[in-house]
């Protein structure tokens, strides 16, 4: 590791590391003299060096399983999205608690490993007084890792994919029927331009990290905007606590470099030295590596931007893609409901009597009926090819039952199946007739194999959210 460790006693690791290290040292300009560190700083550095590298460079096989699993011919942006935020999982993340401190178990293990590694390193190397150059390289790794994560999260907001506009059924769901995280998503979702703005800020921060000299400003933006996201994750159980905390942790680590000089200059008003370790890339291999990294990063940005734009314009992954029944989009009052030849009058307490029905723009039909919903606790984040598996519209809320349907427009039949993972066994087979613009009549068999006859009347209502934005309004 350092020159004092003789080659005779070197472990294979050291024999490998030595040449790499001396290569990395070549960025030093002639005349540069790094200042010595305090003993505690040396030990802390060793710890964070191991800790961060352990999390960033995946040493577990699950990462490679994902990597090999990618269909590069039909690359989905979500594949890159998942890989870019991947952290080493000593224990598979899905086996850990989804919320609270338990999500950080893998960090705990990394801390233990890093502590042991630090102890060993410190024992082997008693002479090294500073790691100025290695510190530079660690910052490079962290900057790129953070920039890539921010690029991915930025673009899925710039093209509002992460928090799509609420569906009609979502809009018609009572406020109390949402989990807090979904309220947060829906509230951001109704302002797509604001979401794009937030995405733009993340992309801007990524580019500020990409350039060594503007890292300080990138970190400032992260604290101002993305730090907020980490706090939201903690308070609303959004489910991305690890990634958002990691972003803030890395940003804080990058900021440590700036604290002394900003303190000196701003608070103590003392003459302050600028960064002296200006890397010199005259070494050919280092220069090639740098150019490759830079080009790779920019290519990644372009590829990811293209892939997310493509997804947003052609097939937003959280929204089903099959078009709904022609001209059916809307909210319907259930004017008549006959169950096994018994007419059931309007009721908001009857467990069978439908109260209202919504046809979405896509092939989803939702029913409000006084029957409990076993909530889909997921975040609706998975990419699914089939519409029935695209569950964002029903993830994290109750209030309505969501059915996927196959429409046979020749025979005028709808084959419905409940989209909810807990209610998948519910299937309905219905005939539809559309006597006029505002009426749909459904006949057939419901999920309990009872016969139903349902007359739907379109409700044309004005809504506070659209009409009451700015104007005085009677609603």
């Amino acid at each position, binding site marked *: 590791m350092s020159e004092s460790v003789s080659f005779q006693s070197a472990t294979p690791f050291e024999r490998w590391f030595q040449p790499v290290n001396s290569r990395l040292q070549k960025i030093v300009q002639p005349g540069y003299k790094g200042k010595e560190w305090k003993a505690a700083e040396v030990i802390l550095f060793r710890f964070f060096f191991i800790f961060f590298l352990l999390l960033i460079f995946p040493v577990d096989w699950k990462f490679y399983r994902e990597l090999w699993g990618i269909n590069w011919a039909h690359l989905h942006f979500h594949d890159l999205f998942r890989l870019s935020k991947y952290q080493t999982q000593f224990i598979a993340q899905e086996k850990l608690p989804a919320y609270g401190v338990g999500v950080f178990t893998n960090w705990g293990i990394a801390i233990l490993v890093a502590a042991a590694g630090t102890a060993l390193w410190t024992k082997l190397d008693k002479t090294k007084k500073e790691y100025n150059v290695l510190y530079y390289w660690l910052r490079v790794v962290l900057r790129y890792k953070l920039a890539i994560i921010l690029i991915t999260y930025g673009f899925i907001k710039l093209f509002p994919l992460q928090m799509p506009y609420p569906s009609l059924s979502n809009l018609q769901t*009572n406020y109390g029927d949402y989990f807090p995280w979904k309220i947060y998503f829906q509230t951001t979702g109704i302002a797509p331009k604001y979401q794009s703005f937030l995405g733009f800020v993340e992309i801007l921060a990524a580019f500020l990290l990409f350039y060594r000299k503007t890292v300080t400003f990138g970190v400032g933006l992260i604290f101002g905007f993305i730090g907020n996201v980490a706090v939201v994750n903690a308070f609303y159980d959004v489910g991305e606590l690890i990634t958002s905390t990691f972003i803030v942790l890395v940003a804080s680590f990058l900021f440590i470099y700036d604290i002394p000089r900003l303190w000196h200059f701003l608070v103590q008003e003392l003459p302050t030295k600028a960064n002296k370790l200006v890397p010199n890339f005259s070494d050919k291999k280092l220069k090639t590596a740098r150019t490759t990294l830079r080009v790779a990063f920019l290519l990644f940005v372009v590829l990811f931007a293209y892939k997310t734009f493509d997804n947003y314009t052609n097939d937003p992954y959280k929204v089903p893609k099959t078009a709904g029944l022609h001209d059916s989009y809307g909210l319907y009052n259930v004017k008549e409901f006959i169950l096994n030849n018994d007419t059931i009058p309007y009721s908001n307490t009857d467990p069978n009597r439908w109260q209202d029905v919504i046809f979405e723009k896509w092939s989803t039909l939702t029913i409000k009926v006084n029957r409990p919903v076993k909530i889909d606790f997921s975040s609706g984040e998975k990419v699914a090819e089939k519409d029935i598996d695209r569950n964002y519209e029903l993830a994290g809320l109750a209030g309505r039952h969501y059915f996927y349907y196959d429409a046979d427009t020749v025979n005028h039949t709808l084959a419905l199946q409940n989209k909810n993972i807990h209610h998948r066994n519910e299937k309905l087979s219905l005939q539809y007739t559309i006597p006029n613009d505002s009426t749909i009549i459904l006949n057939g068999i419901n999920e309990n194999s009872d016969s139903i006859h349902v007359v739907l009347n379109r409700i044309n209502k004005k809504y506070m959210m659209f009409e*009451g934005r700015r104007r005085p309004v009677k609603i």
Partner: protein
Amino acid sequence: MKVVAGLLKFKHMSNTTINLALPAEAKALKQQAAINGAPVSPLAPWTPAAKLAFRIGFLYMLFLCIPTYPKFYEHLFGLQWGKITYHDFQSVVAFWPPQIILIESEEGVFGLLNYINLILVFAAAVVGGLIWTLLDKKTPRYDKLYYWIRVLARYRLAYGMIGWGLKKAFPMQMVYPTMGMLNTPFVDMAEKKLYWSHVGVSFGYTIFLGFAEIIPGLLLLHRKTAVLGAALAAVVTFNICIANHAYDAGVAVPAAYFAIIGTYIAWFELPKIWKLVVQEKDITWAKRYYPVFPQRWKRNLRTAIKITFNFIFVPLAAAMWAYGFFNGNNYNIPSTPGLEEVKGTYNVTEFRLNNKWVPFNPGDSIRWQDAIFENWSTLSYKVNRGAIADRMIGYSPLRVKDDKKNNKLNQVNTQDSDQLAKQKKNRDLGVTRWEVGGMAGDRRYFFYTADTVKKVLYLQNKNKNHDDETQVLHYSMPTPNRIILTGLNEFRDSIYVVLDRTDKKYPLVEGRQTTIKAF
């Protein structure tokens, strides 16, 4: 105001010393430099462009940071000392920039036209700066004036940020959704209501946002940390400004106004930060200009002013907000306790109108579909009938200058809960109408007073546009979960209503970590 006092002082001083090349300060600087071993700052004259920019910036900040409308002073001098609440503190720190014209159109309230006054004031500063340039051809630098205008801007911004932060640190600006709201579809609320509520959903997050404003404010109070505080304040308020546009929340201009002041203060050190961080050049001279007070009484006066104002607008203001928060003066939440043991959501099992049984029907404009008793004295129920929406969506700072005409668009000029309370009247028909504000009309919200001896509820519609609607209903509770209401409704028809309590659970309340699976 400290800033005003400071300003008067510097005006006085500027007349006498402004052209004398600051001999006392220069000497002090040299001495300090000698101690620190740093080279002497080049007290080189500023370039003409820098001087012009300074003059314009100086006047702009001066206009922005001094309250220029009479209402501010009327309020300040009209304070009744025995009856002060947190609102009085907030009115002092949340004043607006000069209101030269007020455009009453939609765009003028919510859109870009709302910025007209910030632009007009800037135009005035440009004109003033040019005249100043014509009149003053001698002054080489403006260190002293620059210092004092930053003092003014710092304290104006600091107290403003702290005031805005306090109403979140003690969650009042954004409150937890009411039961009525939990039972209202997402789409039946105005966007501002949705924005504020999605914050109010999390108590902890609301407090966090409060501190995101308070901490920059506190940093601004100390001149050595002011640049950091100003930069943070500018980032935070810029985000607030954009969010206000996205949700038409009405305070985009005050937020932008704060962001401008923050940027101005941070700008002072930006060239050097740029040099140090981006250009990677050493800073050889970091000393700033500070005024020197050779006389002891001046130093004491300065300390006394500083301590007094900081005490008033930080700990005292915080104490007032805390007192209001913990003692039933949350301005968005009613404080009259509701009828005992009735809180909950009810099904309307039976409804008779003029002795005629009316079946449940979601299309009926009179027949109640459900009923909710809040923890406080509000009864709400759902019918299929619209109402003129009440726009009291939380209390926002004033758009001053007689904004009576503005009522229909954005009813914000209201501290009537406080005013009602001061007159010993029930405050709950005032600004605490938050629960009905920004909501579609088909859920009716009635404030009630209960005569628990005669078992009668006297109800009044909380919606300001329908406050003539009253009902008198007798109540009885044959079983703990059943309430029977009889009496005259707002149309003077007799009604008989049987309510049965439901045990509905709300995912929003239970949260994602709940063990309940079905809702």
